[in-house]
Each structure stands twice: as structure tokens, then as C-alpha cells.
């Protein structure tokens, strides 16, 4: 039995989508190079820790990928429930970091439940839509709607505008993927537009500032507008080919804030120019294309939805972060996936890819809709 298990495991391993793996590695490696530059040549400040986290994350990724997909189907709701509880936990026990309650200090590791939730939501929605194929009645839509809104509200209270946006959009995408009638989307959009003035009142001062700055960066170039102004300066001054590795004057002289986290793409653009920035974007595009291949070739609904959700999440990270550093979106604190320095984001991202790879492995698997995944 064990040798069979081992051989089947090994076979699965070889069938993994190596293209995705390679791209993940390449993009991360670019990130490490940038972190060295951001630290002024110091490898140990950020880069080496990121590499360790990456290795750790890859192990987790592979572990997730090699398990039978139906296990994950089975644990979807449970996973969601745990995440929701942890989110509530942040509300009441939270450790205040960077002026926002987002972390729970679990001795060794700082856990960010909102990150976890991004995956859990996808899993839960995937399972739900898997079990109830289109068309869905209105009543049947209420539950998934709740599944989305509960964490969104909790996250908004933290306050974390970025994650809330991502949860909403990923949830919406899954609704879209599940074949929901387009009418519903129209109504929801109108509802959102109508309630914007109401929502505005709920925003914290600094969030309001960020939105105001977005519409008029000159409003406060030394305060809230500073980040985006400096980002544009650093980015734009890179020109076509950039200033070269470690030659980014704006970054090295500390004019560019958060250069190892939110604004790392700016650093890339300052040092490697338009050429460098486009290169990274092309890598991301390739990665997403490979993900789409999985989405379109998967034979089971659960897999389709999981893959869609993970891909969309990944895309949103990339799109929002890059748009933000270029001044196309208000600053919302979304990291650049695989490149930005940060533990939890990297971990959950690789977890997500683990699920994606899993779906890829099991694309020919047919799962009946009534299945709850127990074998």
C-alpha cells in the first residue's frame, strides 16, 4: 500500500504543471534581487528571509497540491468557518500593527486571518456552486451572498479596504463563473453606487484622505499624497531602461517609502525602466495564461471554481498593486504577489497556487455534484 501510495504520489509529482512552478520561481527570484537592492546591498535584511519563507511556502504548496482534490472539497466549509472565527478573533483580541488591527500574534508567527479568508472564501463558494449547478433561484443565492458579506464586513471594520475589495471582487467573479444571470450583477452594481455616499461615512480619516489624494495628488504632497507622488517620480524617472541595479536614487535616498513592500514595483521600474516593468508584467501574464489553461480544461465544477477564484485573486493582487503605484488607484496596501516582502501574503499565495496545481492535477476527475468529498 505504502509503495503504491508513494509511486502514485511520485507520478502525480511528475505530472505537476512545471510551467507554473517555473514562473513562480522566476518571479520570486526577481523579487529577491529587488529586495537586495532595496536593502542597499544587504542580502540578510530582507532577501534571505524571503527566500526561506519561499522554500517553506513551496513545501506547503506541494503538500496541498498532492492531496486528493476531494479532501479539499470535504473541508471547504470547515476551512471557511475557521477563517471566519479567526477574523472575529482579530476584532476582539487583535494586535495593533501599523495603525490597523489585522494581526493575531501567535507567539512565533503573526497570522493574518484576512489573507486566509481569501482562500477560504473561494473554497466555500466553489463547493456551494459545485453542488448547485446553474440556474440558481434567488433564495439559493442568499447563502453565498452571506458567505461573501460576512467576512467583508468584518474586514472593513479592521479597517482593510484592500482586502474587502478583493473579497468582493473574487466573490463576484465566482458568481459570474457560476453562471448567475447578468441581471443580478446590474442590480448589485446599482446598489453599490447608491450606497457609496453612505459607505463614505464609514471610512476612516486616512482612508478618506487616500481617496481624496487619488483624485487630486497635489492636495497634500507632503502628507498622504507623498507616497503616490514619490512613486510616480521614482517610476517615471526610470525611463526606458532604468538606472540599473542598486542605482535607484529615489529608493536609496529614502524618497520612496515602503519600497520593499507596497512600492516594490516602483523600485523595479526605477532601476530597470519600462523594459524591466514590462518584462515582469509579461511573466505575470504567462502565469495567468497557464492558470487559465487549467480553468478551461478542468472537467469538474469544483475544480473550475477553485481555479477561477485563485487565478482571479492572483490577478487582482497584480492589477491593484501596479495600478496603485502608478497613481491609477487610491493607495490600498495590496502587495505585489511573490515579489513584495511579507510573510503571510507569500504563504497564502503559495497555498493558493497549491490548490490551483491540485486542480490541474485532477482536471480529468469527475466529481458528482452531490458529492461531499468523503471517500
Amino acid at each position: 500500500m505504502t509503495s503504491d501510495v508513494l509511486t502514485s504520489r511520485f507520478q502525480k509529482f511528475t505530472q505537476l504543471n512545471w510551467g507554473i512552478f517555473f514562473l513562480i520561481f522566476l518571479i520570486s527570484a526577481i523579487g529577491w534581487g529587488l529586495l537586495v537592492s532595496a536593502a542597499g546591498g544587504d542580502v540578510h535584511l530582507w532577501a534571505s528571509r524571503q527566500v526561506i519563507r519561499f522554500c517553506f511556502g513551496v513545501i506547503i504548496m506541494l503538500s496541498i497540491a498532492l492531496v486528493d482534490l476531494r479532501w479539499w472539497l470535504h473541508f471547504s466549509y470547515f476551512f471557511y468557518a475557521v477563517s471566519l472565527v479567526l477574523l472575529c478573533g482579530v476584532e476582539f483580541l487583535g494586535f495593533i500593527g501599523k495603525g490597523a488591527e489585522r494581526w493575531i500574534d501567535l507567539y512565533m508567527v503573526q497570522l493574518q486571518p484576512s489573507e486566509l479568508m481569501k482562500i477560504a472564501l473561494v473554497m466555500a463558494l466553489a463547493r456551494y456552486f459545485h453542488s448547485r449547478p446553474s440556474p440558481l433561484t434567488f433564495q439559493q443565492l442568499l447563502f453565498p451572498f452571506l458567505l461573501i458579506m460576512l467576512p467583508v464586513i468584518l474586514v472593513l471594520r479592521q479597517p482593510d479596504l484592500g482586502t474587502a475589495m478583493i473579497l468582493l471582487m473574487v466573490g463576484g467573479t465566482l458568481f459570474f463563473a457560476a453562471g448567475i444571470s447578468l441581471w443580478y450583477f446590474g442590480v448589485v452594481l446599482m446598489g453599490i453606487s447608491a450606497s457609496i455616499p453612505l459607505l463614505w461615512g464609514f471610512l476612516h480619516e486616512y482612508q478618506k484622505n487616500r481617496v481624496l489624494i487619488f483624485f487630486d495628488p497635489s492636495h497634500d504632497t507632503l502628507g498622504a499624497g507623498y507616497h503616490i507622488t514619490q512613486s510616480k517620480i521614482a517610476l517615471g524617472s526610470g525611463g526606458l531602461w532604468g538606472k540599473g541595479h542598486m542605482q535607484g536614487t529615489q529608493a536609496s535616498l529614502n524618497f520612496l517609502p515602503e519600497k520593499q513592500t507596497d512600492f516594490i514595483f516602483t523600485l523595479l521600474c526605477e532601476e530597470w525602466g519600462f523594459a524591466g516593468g514590462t518584462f515582469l508584467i509579461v511573466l505575470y501574464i504567462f502565469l495567468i495564461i497557464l492558470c487559465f489553461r487549467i480553468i478551461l480544461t478542468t472537467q469538474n465544477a469544483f475544480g473550475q471554481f477553485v481555479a477561477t477564484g485563485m487565478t482571479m485573486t492572483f490577478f487582482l493582487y497584480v492589477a491593484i498593486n501596479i495600478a496603485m503605484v502608478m497613481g491609477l488607484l487610491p493607495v490600498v496596501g495590496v502587495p505585489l504577489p511573490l515579489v513584495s516582502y511579507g510573510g503571510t501574503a507569500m504563504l497564502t499565495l503559495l497555498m493558493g497556487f497549491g490548490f490551483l496545481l491540485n486542480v490541474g492535477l485532477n482536471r480529468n476527475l469527475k466529481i458528482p455534484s452531490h458529492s461531499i468529498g468523503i471517500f
Partner: protein
Amino acid sequence: MSEENNNKFIRRMIFLGIIQIIFILILVGRMYYLQVFEGPYYHLLAEGNRIATRPLVPLRGQIYDRHGVPLAQNETNFRVVFLTDKRAEVEDTLNMLSGLITLSEEERKDVLNIIRKKRGLDSVIIKDNLTWEEVSAIELHTVDLPGISIEIGSTRTYPQRLAGAHLLGYVASSSEKEQEEDPMLTIPGLKIGKVGVEKYFDKYLRGMPGHSAFEINAKRKVLRELYQQASTAGQDLYLTLDSRLQDYVQDVLSRYESAAAVVIDIQNGDVLALASHPSFDPNLFPQGIGHKPWHELQENPYVPLTNKAISGRYAPGSTVKLLVALAALQSGIIDKNSTVYCPGYIYVGDHKFHCMHSHGNVNVSRAIIESCDVFFYEISKKVGIDRLSALYREFGLGEGGLENFPHSKKGLVPTKAWKIEKKNANWTISDTIQASIGQGYMLATPLELAVAMARLAGGGKKLVPRLTKEEHLPFSDMGFEKRHLETILEATRGVVNFPNGTAFRNRIMAAGQEMGGKTGTSQVRRITMQQRKAGQTKTHHLPWKYREHGLFIGWAPIQNPRYAIAVVVEHAGGSGPAIQAARDILQYAQNLGREAVQ
């Protein structure tokens, strides 16, 4: 999933994919816009972020006399500055500093004031001209003095000191008003000319400031110097002045209480010497003159700060008789043999105008040599004020001399129109008579008199005085007949060298160096400079000094006109001192001329 649902799914996924591609293209487009299209603009801003500049004071052009003798120089010195990114610690630092060097309360206050008022400043000069001990003391304690730095600067020095101080002028720091008009002047340490040649040629002498660029980080901390754009030194200036002559003139004038003299080269208009006495030491000013010396200068009754050679307006007295004679000759009213009988006085209405004594029958020559007033009273009536004042102006009276030179004043040549406008009265014959002997409303500066003499002695050419050697264009001919000019000049030779000449006693003895000229005294009906300053403008304010000013205009050598001179000695009581001064000066000038090849 059913077939239909699957197709729907695939359709929707493709749609999603397209949306994603479009969004990414927008991002790439935006990137292109920022980096390629607007790249240079952001590059500029990036550099603007990280580069801070400090201006470098340009080295001022030095001033030399015609032989290269330095008149105004730059001496390097050390000064201590406070770098204002340490604004918060300035009080403590100053306290520490005053323990090491002498820092007056006033200097402290000034520094604190500047730091408080001017926000954009990079550095403030605390003290200039440090002694070597002070520099060492500061260098030793740099650790305790955050934000303090020693800089090398330069101070303007005037080696000739009193001689030529008025003409040369001095530099000092610019005032706030001047800074408003020209922002370049806000550079700390930049001095500008305030008076005299330093001011007249200031732009030429100033040069262009450079700057040094530093890389700074986001906390405005200086990391390293990136480059220096050197300042362009100002251009050196060579004046027509002869410093030996100037020195001598200043010396001669110092025999008296208050005097002025101008020496001009008749051939080309070079100003060889221009002096006013008493003088002052211009070295007091570049660092900021102290209150005490300033007060002393202000309180001195002989007004040392005034350049009497160009600002002093005196009634020219008998010196203008040369011009009256020329006017009469030129207009044919007299010839060189015509005579007038002088009984010692004439009547105009019931007013009696006097002469020195009865001269009997005089022709123009004798009238000049012996300075007979009556002769000129008579002919001036025929010449008329219009022709007379026109000729005066031709010879430069009332014209000033050095155009736009700081503090240069013009004399006064009265006309009928002038009297109506300024005095609201009609011109009378007695006004003409007064004007014919250089009294009444007439005023002239010593420079104007020297120019007039030079124009006469130079053969009726319209000489223009100049301070620097430029290409010499020949002076235009004023259109006077040679023989008339010769008559006048011959008479001036007689004034000095004939026994009956008014200047005979003070003639130059040395053969070949004899001078010609005309004496004059001006009555002190006019208010002297000191009284005007003190606000005494009414005749009953005249002090015990009723003595007249003494004047002499002259030229030498008589065989071959070279130098023209005008001397005014205030309150001399007669022209004697003026003639003596002119004699000594012209002799000295000619001796100099013999030594060097000009």
C-alpha cells in the same frame, strides 16, 4: 456540469480573460506614459528631490590704475558660518561659540534674526575676517559645535586708503530693498558696490555666481557633494587714474580744511586724478562699518563722505571770464584789440558793481590777465545771456561730466527761461552781469571746470572725460575759430607768467613746465556743503567763515597742452591756495609724464 452550462462557463471565462488583458494593457500604457513620455519630467523631479544646491560667491573683479597699481583687491579671509539645517540648536551653538571667539551681542542678535526670518537659507555668516587664533579655536572644538563650518571668503581691500576713496567708492552687503530688486544679491557674502567706481561698474566687476550641488536624502541630510559649477570671476577694471598723481593730489589738498581737485588728460579725456578732501578710509565699509566710525564721518563738519569734485557746486567766479571772452570774440562783438575803459565800477540802474581796482583801458587779454570785472560786465551786456549760457553749456558747465556716475551733480547755468520757472521772475541785466563773472545763480562742479579748461586748451574740441581706456574716438570740433582760441590761451599763459597776472606769484618756475590758467574766487553767498547738510539755508545762518572759496583752472605745459586741472579750496579767502595747489600738482604730473612712456 452540463454541456450547456459548461459552454456558458467557458464563454464567461474567456470574457473574464479578455477583461484582464485589457486592464493589463491599460497598466502597460500608463507605464509607458509615465516612463517614456513623461520620463524626462520625472527624471527632473527625481533630481530635484535629491539634489540641493548652494550658491558660490563669485570673485569680484579687481580695480587697477592705468599702470596696474592695485586700487581695489580681494583678500582671502576666513569666516564662520552656521548651517541652517541645525536650526533648533542655534542658541546653544552660539553660546558655545562666544566662548571661543569674540562675538558681540549685536552679532548674535543679527544671526538669530536672520535665521528666524529667512526660512529657505542654507547657511548664515556668523562672523567674518576671523583671526588665525579664532579659526584654530573653532576647528579644535568642532565636536561641540554642531552645524558650524569654517569657510574661505574674500574681503575687499583698498590699498591706497584715503587717496581716491571718493572716486573708487567701496563695496558692502546689499540692503533688503536692493535684494528685492535683484534676487542674486541674497547670496550670503556677496558684496555690491555702493558708491563710486565700485557702484558705477558693479555689474562688470561682479561676475556670475556658481553653485555646488549636494546629494541629500529624504531627511535633507547632506550625503556627498555631486559637482561644482564654478563661479565666473568678475572682470578686472583698469582705470585711467594714475595712483601716484592721485596720491599726491590727495596730499596737496590735505594742507587745507576742505578742497577738491580734478586732473584730466587734454588729448584723450583720461581722468588722471579726482580727489576730494577730507577723505575717508574705504576699508571700513566692506565688512559693515561700525556705528562709531560712521558717526564720526557723519559729524565731521567738512563732510568727508561727499565727493566734492563731482558733487560740490560752487560759483565758478572769474574762471568763466575765459568763456565770456570767447563768446564775445566769436560773435564778433569785440576783437582782440577792442578796449573797454574800467574806472573800477559800473552802474546798473542804481546798483554799483565793483572791480578790484581801476584798470583803465583794457583789452580782452589784459582783462583776463588782470581779471578786470568791468570789462566783462560791459561785453556781457552785448553778448547777452542767451549766447552766454549756450556757450557755457558747450564747454560742459551745467552738464555734469560723468554720465550716471553715482552722486555726480550738475552745475547750474541760468537762463531766462530758468529764472522764470524757478524764481518766478524775469531776467535782468544785473543777472547777466553776475553771470559774466561767474556769480549770481551760476554753479559748477570742479569736474565741469576741469572739462571746460580741457576743451579750451585742447583747441576747442569737445572733450569727454573718461574713467577707463576705451577706443578713443576723436573729439568733435566745437567750431570756434583758431585765432580766438589762441587769444584766450595766450591770455591764460599771461595770467600765470606775466608780472601783472593774478597768478604770477604762484607760477611754475621750471622751464618747459609753465602752466596757464585763470584764477577765481566765489563769494559765499551760496551755502556751503556743510551748512546745507546742517539745514542752514538762510544767509543769516552764515557762520563766522565769511571767507570766499578759492578756485583755479589751469593747463600745462603751455608749449604743448597736456594736462588740465581745476582746484577748489573752500573758504580760502582768495585764489592763492588754489593756484599753489594747481602749481604743485601740474609740476608733479609733468615730472611723472617725463619718467614713464605713456
